[in-house]
């Protein structure tokens, strides 16, 4: 039986066509690069300065929460304030404990959280970028503590959501 031109191409033909496309692309790319003023050298003269932050924590990152989702009276909840002790004293969410987060001197924060036997941990910080609440939450979650969240917007947003109460 003779098959005509309506048959699908053989795999060898498909691979050959793909190779032709790659060769053609390389030719166009190199020619264009040669002709344009913003062309780059084919081999970089020096290493690229790649600034990629290393991972800070090994475990799963904490999950974000909107301030409206925080109910300080929730059963089994541990609320953690990651800000400086001074700002904690000025205002903190009802029932929140203070664990100031210090990036330069991280402490074994998870031990205090584990001792509380809470079923859910919600951390809020200064709400800045980076947010100390998110960092502390990630640090705790990274140590293997489950069900850890942080509040988007930190203390300012949470305070608005809770009506500014102490």
């Amino acid at each position, binding site marked *: *039986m*003779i*098959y*005509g*031109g*309506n*048959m*699908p*191409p*053989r795999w060898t*033909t*498909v*691979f050959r*066509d*793909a190779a032709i*496309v*790659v060769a*053609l*692309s*390389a030719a*166009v*790319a*190199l020619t*264009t*690069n040669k002709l344009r003023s*913003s*062309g*780059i*050298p*084919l*081999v*970089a003269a020096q*290493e*690229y300065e*790649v600034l*990629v*932050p*290393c*991972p800070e924590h090994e475990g799963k990152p904490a999950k974000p929460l909107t301030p409206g989702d925080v109910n300080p009276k929730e059963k089994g909840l541990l609320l953690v304030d990651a800000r400086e002790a001074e700002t904690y004293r000025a205002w903190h969410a009802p029932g929140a404990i203070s664990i100031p987060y210090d990036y330069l001197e991280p402490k074994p924060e998870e031990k205090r959280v584990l001792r509380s036997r809470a079923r859910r941990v919600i951390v809020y910080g200064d709400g800045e970028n980076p947010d100390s609440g998110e960092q502390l939450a990630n640090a705790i979650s990274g140590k293997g503590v489950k069900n850890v969240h942080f509040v988007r917007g930190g203390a300012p947003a949470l305070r608005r959501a809770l009506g500014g109460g102490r």
Partner: protein
Amino acid sequence: MKRILEWPGHAWLALPARLYLGYVFIWACLHKIAAPATFALDVATYQLLPLSLINITALVLPWVELLAGVMIVLGFRTRAAALLISGMMLVFMVALGWALHQGLDMSCGCFASQSSDEHAISWLTMLRDAGWLALALYVLGFDRRPLGLDRLWPRGRATAA
């Protein structure tokens, strides 16, 4: 299996997949072609390739994306285009998986104007890429008589069987 492969509906099912993949790849390559130095930095950020291959990859890859994207939209050498897109997706997924494994906080560099703050890579990026790979593999494996130029001007291959 032969009956499944020969089902004529594949061409119509594959058409939206082809148009979508073509759109994605053509859109993705434009900023890379326009700003090769920026894309070279994106490639370097993955920390996978040796220095000697970074610039050449940054120069050639976008053009492969462009040609493959145009071909798959037009239905010209469609399966070769699908093969190239599948291959590129596999390479991207390996690079992405490696970056995620290393915990690199970075943008995938897939599209223009992506900062790592707003478009940081994640396993969702991997899932998205897997979806595109699945579409490309479907076209490659099942779209044997694609709608488009391949059907208008089929190859004059005659095979005795």
